[in-house]
């Protein structure tokens, strides 16, 4: 007789003896309480519901907990799906939620989440996904009622009805973006009471042996969890690796076009135009400055690092200050008075990294031009241009800004007051393979005779680190005035004031 057949027969005999002997040793209460038809599945479903309703806005828990909750709900309803059509519907709805939420989390690891178009689409999709909670909770309630009915029992499932109504109210509050405090607190209390009731119903049904049609498990829960988490992490990694900076159109600068600008350059330098800025301008831009009669310029070096704390002791007092050993970012602003009907100025805002900027993510320059305020008294065609440059292997490369346009946006202050502002934003990303990164923007403005001075401001926002979630661009950070993302971004301010 073969060994496996012998083993099989021995196993059979052994099992028979076990069954004979164990008849006289029933399980104790503790063991018996664990032999239930759907305790694990229902626990996963209820935990999933709870985690989807808990919102903790720190350490990314507002993403992690709902994701765990949705995965648990999928696993729980996977086991229950064959019991009735309600639980099957819940299973499908949770799969849809899982796909949507995974895409949402992955998208937040890219700069696309900050794009206005993508934001609009994702708001619509997110609202549709949020609506799913209503049919989900309703089907869950009906599923419990069906199990109840099948077992010939009539234990109350009214908590499910209350939860359905609760989810409708929650959805409406989300849609109208309710910002009050009283209703959410009341909703939270109601949810807690309903949830506890549902847990009790589930526990009772479970312990009372309400049995279910078992669904064969072909892939274990652990493998599904691993797969879901792995796919998500891969997409997040790809997001950070390939979609964390703007795609720029770098090309080598054509040196030949500067031949007929030497005379103008000499004149400008004599008037005080900084040579390093002049060398970066195109021939056409230099030609626009022909006939200049006055130049006003200001150059400042700004630290972009965190500095170091320096402690001094003076007259029984301990004084601490932040000292910067290097100032990596030079901002030079130049005003050029050129011939025109009215007093016409060309304003240049130039930036140059004097040291390695470190991380190359997204950069933003926010310009508040002289004409931007309605009462500024300055007239302009509001055309603003510029480019970014870097050097590599003795060659200079240029690219237009990824975007350079005027935008009106609103932001909330620290006390949640809303403000509106208009500014010109230029966005770009530096490449890791270069050095001497720099760039500039320029525009023209004419004096309307209202005031005898004007100013033009530049705010440069640099992304220092990759470690942020959700991903925010430097421009978005500046638009929110850095309330959401301290540490990852640093903004440097500069301005040019001209008396006319």
């Amino acid at each position, binding site marked *: 007789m073969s060994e496996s057949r012998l083993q099989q027969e021995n196993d059979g005999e052994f099992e028979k003896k076990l069954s004979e002997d164990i008849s006289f*040793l029933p399980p104790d209460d503790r063991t018996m309480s664990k032999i239930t038809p759907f305790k694990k599945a229902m626990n996963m479903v209820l935990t999933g519901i709870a985690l989807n309703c808990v919102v903790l806005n720190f350490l990314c828990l507002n993403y992690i907990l709902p994701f765990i909750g949705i995965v648990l709900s999928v696993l729980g309803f996977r086991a229950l799906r064959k019991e009735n059509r309600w639980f099957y519907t819940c299973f499908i709805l949770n799969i849809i939620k899982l796909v949507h939420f995974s895409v949402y989390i992955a998208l937040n690891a890219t700069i696309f989440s900050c794009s206005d178009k993508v934001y609009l689409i994702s708001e619509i999709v997110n609202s549709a996904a949020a609506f799913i909670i209503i049919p989900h909770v309703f089907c869950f309630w009906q599923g419990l009622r069906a199990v109840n009915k099948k077992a010939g029992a009539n234990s109350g499932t009214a908590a499910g009805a209350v939860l359905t109504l609760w989810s409708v109210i929650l959805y409406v509050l989300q849609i109208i973006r309710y910002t009050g405090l009283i209703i959410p607190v009341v909703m939270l209390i109601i949810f807690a009471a309903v949830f506890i009731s549902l847990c009790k119903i589930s526990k009772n049904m479970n312990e009372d042996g309400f049995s279910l049609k078992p669904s064969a498990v072909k892939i274990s829960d652990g493998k599904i969890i691993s797969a879901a988490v792995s796919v998500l992490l891969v997409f997040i990694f790809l997001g950070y690796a390939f979609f964390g900076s703007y795609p720029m159109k770098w090309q080598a600068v054509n040196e030949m076009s500067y031949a007929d600008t030497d005379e103008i350059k000499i004149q400008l330098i004599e008037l005080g135009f900084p040579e390093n800025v002049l060398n970066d301008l195109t021939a056409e831009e230099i030609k626009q400055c022909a006939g200049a009669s006055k130049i006003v310029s200001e150059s400042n070096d700004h630290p972009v690092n965190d500095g170091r704390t320096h402690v001094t002791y003076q007259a029984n007092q301990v004084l601490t200050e932040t000292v910067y050993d290097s100032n990596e970012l030079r901002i030079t602003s130049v005003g050029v008075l050129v011939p025109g009907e009215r007093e016409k100025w060309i304003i240049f805002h130039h930036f140059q990294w004097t040291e390695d900027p470190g991380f190359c993510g997204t950069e933003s320059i926010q310009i508040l031009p002289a004409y931007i305020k309605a009462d500024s008294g300055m007239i302009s065609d509001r055309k603003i241009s510029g480019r970014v440059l870097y050097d590599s292997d003795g060659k200079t490369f240029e690219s237009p800004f990824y975007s350079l346009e005027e935008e009106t946006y609103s932001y909330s202050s620290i006390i949640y007051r809303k403000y509106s502002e208009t500014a010109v934003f230029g966005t770009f990303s530096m490449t890791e393979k270069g050095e001497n990164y720099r760039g500039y923007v320029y525009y023209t403005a004419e004096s309307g005779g209202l005031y005898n001075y004007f100013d033009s401001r530049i705010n440069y926002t640099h992304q220092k680190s990759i470690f942020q979630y959700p991903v925010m661009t430097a421009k978005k950070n500046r638009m929110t005035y850095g309330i959401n993302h301290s540490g990852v971004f640093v903004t440097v301010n500069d301005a040019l004031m001209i008396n006319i």
Partner: protein
Amino acid sequence: MLLKKSDVAQALMKRDENGINELLRHYGPLIKYVIRPFLKNSADREECLSETVMLIWKNIDKFDGSKGSFKRWVTVVARNSAVSFLRKNKFSEELEELSEKIPSSEPSPEEALEIKERRRKLAKAVSMLSEKEKVLFYRKYYYFQSNIQIAAEMGITEKAVEGRLYRLRNRLRVMLGDDENE
């Protein structure tokens, strides 16, 4: 009149016939859950359910609250009732296959001694199992749940159940000192 779950045992002890209705209301699904793996036929299950309820009604005086909960006692009666029903009605191939695992009733005196010793060893071995192992053990060998049912209710694959049962059997063999396997 509706009774609370905790009052059903009391009502049965007082020979209150309403206790039977309440027993079915509160414990009917549990009894059906225990019976289901033994009896595939729904008519047999209904008959066995009725027999179980009658057994509980007749033997309620034997319930000792100090040895465990009323719920536990109900499941023991239900399980034993299903085994008896099966033994009484073993006429189909399916039932025969299952009935091979059901204990036979009348051992000889020597066998009785051997069985007593074996059970003592088994009780000791079971007490040394982890909680998860105990649950799997009782599901399989006491409640006769199929691997599919166990897998579905525990949320694991059938292969995982088979693997765990294989390891459990081997462990019990070692603990029980199974001479036949040498």
